[in-house]
């Protein structure tokens, strides 16, 4: 295997986001940016394949200049190269425009056998960009992968579905998106961190990736957000009083009355 491309996204750490109870808005001050957790598993999967096959691991990320931080973290974990896809004209991109932009960047890198993404990003939760990239590059995709096996130039993966697993095989190149169950991520070594600090990160802009300006940013995005609102809070529920036995009695009675159980 020659090159493995890993797509990562920098996201706000939603674990650290809280809600202002008075205004019902998100409090984001001081919320750190992290690599999307599923993308860390994607990188780990790539690094494990690198150890087995000697492939080069190239991480790419689209976003503002501060995404460099996430890319350096990926380099510290063991990625060989990092590419930042960044340009003012990419702003306002939905999943269609994002898929196009990233696929154009990957075409510029060229010569890849495998693309690995996290199954979805925790800020948008769409799970649409991975398949979008695969479509633009005209290669097969396998999403929600929890196990990979690479033997004799063939790929065998397990894909998680609602009622079990699908075992699939494919030739390269292919794009896969991975779940958290695929592996345990490693922590960067001190040596890795030192190396990442001074590593050069390539920046690809719209011109470099030969982007069609009608397909990027806001202009390339068919979807539009028209309204944002906070979900209506539920009416406050009922706290059942008494000791454990009394509470249990009341609860079972209520559920039976309402024919819920």
């Amino acid at each position, binding site marked *: 295997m020659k090159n493995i491309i890993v797509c990562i996204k920098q996201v706000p750490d939603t674990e650290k986001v809280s809600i202002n109870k008075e205004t019902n808005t998100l409090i984001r001050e001081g919320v750190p940016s992290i690599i999307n957790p599923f993308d860390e598993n994607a990188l780990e999967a790539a690094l494990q394949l690198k150890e087995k096959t000697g492939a080069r691991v190239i991480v790419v990320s689209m976003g503002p200049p501060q995404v460099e931080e996430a890319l350096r973290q990926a380099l510290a974990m063991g990625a060989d190269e990092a590419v930042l896809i960044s340009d003012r004209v990419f702003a306002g991109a939905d999943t269609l425009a994002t898929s196009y932009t990233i696929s154009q960047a990957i075409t510029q890198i060229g010569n890849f056998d495998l693309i690995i993404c996290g199954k979805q990003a925790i800020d948008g939760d769409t799970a649409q960009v991975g*398949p979008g990239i695969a479509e633009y590059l005209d290669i097969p*995709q*396998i999403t929600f992968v929890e196990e990979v096996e690479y033997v004799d130039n063939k790929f065998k993966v397990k894909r998680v579905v609602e009622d079990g697993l699908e075992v699939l095989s494919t030739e390269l190149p292919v794009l896969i998106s991975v779940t958290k169950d695929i592996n345990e991520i490693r922590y960067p070594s001190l040596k890795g961190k030192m190396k990442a600090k001074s590593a050069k990160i390539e920046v690809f802009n719209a011109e470099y990736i030969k982007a069609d300006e009608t397909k990027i940013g806001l202009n390339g995005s068919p979807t539009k*957000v028209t309204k944002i*609102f906070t979900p209506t809070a539920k009416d406050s*529920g009922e*706290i059942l009083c008494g000791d454990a036995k009394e509470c*249990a009695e009341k609860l079972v009675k209520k559920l039976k009355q309402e024919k*819920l159980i």
Partner: protein
Amino acid sequence: MGIRIIAGKCVGCKQCVNACPFGAISMVEKLAVIDEFTCKLCGACVEACKVNAIEMDVKKVAEKQDITQYQGVAVYAETRNNELQEVAKELLSEGKKIADQLKISLVALLIGEDVKYLSEECFKYGADKVYVAQDKRLKNYTTSPYTRAVVDFVKEVKPEILLLGATTMGRDLAARAAVRLQTGLTADCTELGVDVAARAFLQTRPAFGGNIMATIVCPDHRPQMATVRPHVMKKVEVADFKKGPVIDLKINYEPKDFKVQVVEIIKEVKEQLNLAEADIIVAGGRGVQSADNFKLIKELAHLLGGAVGASRAAVDADWIPHFHQVGQTGKTVQSKIYIACGISGAIQHLAGMQSSDIIIAINKDADAPIFKVADYGIVGDLLEVLPALISEYKVQ
């Protein structure tokens, strides 16, 4: 960049900072600054600004697609093992509502090995017409041939709205098909509506871990595509349904569509039901305290015929496999009853379960945020409450 702050007008009131659902605005020396990359150009700040200090460009469309030839609502009626899935019935029912509002027809699309016989069921849930792409190579789902079937169907039928289930199949398929069709797609919607006057399809979905809801439209491209979360829409059988035409589609598959091959399908023999489909979920968190105590959770779940869930804390502590995790980095569920035991209710857990019908919280800490979303709360030690519930259920 399509948006800017007019420095002379901005008074530094922070209204826009609070209004921005994406956290893209910050104050720098009493002046609002928009982070151009985080900004999604949704315009929430423009509306919130009392002094008209934010200016936004109107989107330019390179070439307008002729969208007038697109008409009707289409539903991809998902099948597995030649059986119609529940989500298909839900979407047909919801699709019918939309079609009735817009006074247009509803068509169903069946794809599979031997699925034509399911047309009758599609009619029962409101379809006026059923299209079938049947081929022995389509026995098991893989992305490419199914994408080709969906894309060829859209080219022939030209629906203005296309719905798919937000299942592992629907999300994989819709994402690929939408790009090939060069149209917009909204993921995992929990609410659908129409603006009849504007003939716009309003797609609402949770974002940012369920903390905010976003309504999304696709004004200039067709079909307007959405995946819809299973278990949200109500399935309704049409009492006096009529059988309409059933049309076979001829799909020109290419050899490259079959590069991915299904080697084996492993049905998980689980002691419990699958979480996403379960009507009742009993979930444990940090308060369960040990792997051993999870037996109580499992016992109650088993008794109620439900599934076992867990918070991230319980999974991280290795008391239960990640497979059971509910929440943002786990599964999103929508059960009829969700019993949260010893779960404090961090927002990323709430994101995965708060749309359940009835939420029951059992927690020692009366101030735990889980009680805010609970319909019934018991403040107490789950190690006492659960055994009491189990014996009470058996008695009553």
